[in-house]
Each structure stands twice: as C-alpha cells, then as structure tokens.
C-alpha cells in the first residue's frame, strides 16, 4: 500500500476555502478602491493638466518629475519633453545635457511656459533602471527555485520543505 506523504494529505484539506476566496476578493476590491482613490483625489497639479487647461492653472506652482527629459538646451533655459509634449523652461540650470532626466519645481504660465524655481538633474537614472533589472531577475529566479505551484492546493509551496 502506498502512503501519501504528510504534506500531500495536508494539501487535500487546505485548498481554496470560501474564507480564502472571500479574503482574496476583499483584498482585490481594496486594491481597486485605493487605485481609484489615488487617481481621483491626488491633489498634485501635473504639467499635463496645465497644458490641457492653461487658463485655469496659470501661475500655479507645479512639480514635474515623471519621465521628464531635456529635449534641447537653449540660451535662457531648456526645452522639456514629457509624455511627448515639449515645453519651454526659463531659468538657470547648469550642466544640462540633452536626454537627461530632470525633476523640477516651476511656475506654469500660459499658454505653455515654465518658470524654473528648483531643478534636480537625475544623472544615471537610465543606468539605474537597467541595473535594477539584474537583482530583479535574480530574486525572481530565487523565488522560483524555492517555491513551486501545487496544483492540488492551487497555491505555492516549498520545493524542498526540509530546508531550514
């Protein structure tokens, strides 16, 4: 007679119980709710909002940081590119190079001009993103090495439960 190992017999009675399904469902609803709230109530004024309604946001102090790069360096400032849109930024900024990521605090003037207040040039940001892929892959491989999908439980279990 073939005996099932202890782990297998346990797994028979620990599948997706109604409580577990409800928990997952509840957490998913919470996640969707937080995402909706985060979008709907975020008070940040973005450059895209200003460009969409220049009259409304004229004179507003805004933060620009999301994937904003230098498109061109000009005499009195630079041209900023964000989400495919180009905006002139007036103000002193040292050591700027085309293609660099920047974060800035600026006053928006209609129809589409930024008066620079504060700037940070995120040098090496592109390198940082690419370098970050290495530990990401390593951690995911480590997880795959340590855990496996148990189709009986429809969940993840240890590959080698004896490991301490």
């Amino acid at each position, binding site marked *: 007679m073939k005996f099932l190992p202890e782990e297998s017999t346990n797994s028979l009675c620990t599948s997706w119980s109604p409580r577990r399904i409800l*928990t997952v469902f509840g957490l998913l609803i919470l996640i969707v709710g937080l995402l909706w709230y985060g979008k709907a109530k975020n008070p940040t004024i973005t450059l895209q909002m200003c460009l969409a309604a220049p009259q409304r946001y004229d004179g507003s102090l805004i933060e620009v940081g999301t994937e904003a790069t230098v498109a061109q360096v000009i005499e009195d400032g630079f041209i900023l590119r964000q989400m495919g849109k180009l905006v002139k930024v007036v103000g002193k900024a040292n050591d700027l190079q085309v293609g660099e990521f920047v974060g*800035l*605090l600026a006053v928006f003037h209609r129809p589409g001009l930024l008066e620079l207040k504060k700037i940070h040039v995120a040098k090496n940001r592109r390198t*940082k993103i690419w*370098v970050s892929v290495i530990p990401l892959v390593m951690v995911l491989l480590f997880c795959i090495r340590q855990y496996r999908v148990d189709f009986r439980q429809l*969940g993840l*279990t240890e590959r080698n439960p004896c*490991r301490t």
Partner: protein
Amino acid sequence: MPDLITHTAVAYLASRPRSFARYRAVFYLGTILPDLISRPLYIIKPELFVYAAAIHTPVFLIVSCLLLAELFAEKLRSGVRLFLLAGVGLHLCLDLLQRHVASGYFWLFPFSWQSFEVGLFWPETPLSLAPLWIGSVLLTEVIIRLRKLKVKSGSTPEPKAGFH
C-alpha cells in the same frame, strides 16, 4: 527609489540570521515589491503615474502583501505574510532616507497627501556605491562558506587508533 542592487544588497545583509532561512526568497521579494509593482507602470506608460503614486504607499503595499500571501499554501502563509511585510518595510525605510526636488512619497495615503522624507541622498546617489554593496555581499558569502567548511572539517570523526 535607490536602485534595486542597493535594496537587494541591504536585504541580503539584513537577512543573515538563521530565522530568515526558510523565507529568505520571500523577504527579498518584499524588498523589491514596491518598485516591482509601481515603476514599470509609469516607465512604460507615464500617463499612469497617478496610479503609481498610490501604489508606492505603505497601506497599498500592506494590502498587496496580504494578497500575495494568499497565493501560498496555508502552512506557509503566515510566515510569507510576515517576511513580505518585513521586506517591504526595509524598502520603505531606505526610501524614507531619500530626497526629492519637490514632494516625495505619500506615506500616510489614503488618510493624508502630506509627504515627508529624511533627505540624506538623491535617488540616483546609491548607484555609485553599488560596487561597494556587491563587494559586501560577496565578502559575506565567502565568510559564510569558509565558516561552513571549517565546521564540516572540524566535525569529521577522528580515525580510530589501530586502523592506520
């Protein structure tokens, strides 16, 4: 965020105690989770930044950890939950030390849109120290392996007299 090499190296050094052994992979996963679920969103599609602002917050990440833990077998779940949360906590502690040109992360979301940070370094700064982190990890790994070898060689039984 500091780069993921910094986050993972700090997690590696923090997870040396024996109590981490069973859940080390999960701890690492927790350490990279905040960036794993928020960054690709707006690096690939910057228009989705409004969602990313909500994702990289303690409340959202706690809910995500609870949801992720539900994917594991019941006997692992509480441990996975704990170590995922510990990893996320470590990640957020490092992020708290950063500085931004304007507002940083919304630590109290969804209760408040206030943002605060210690401001020790810019997000890109730790990248220049990546060789140091990698060196520390390698050195620790070498020391651990040497210790294991020493323990192994010390525990081999002495040959009995008369056998040689």
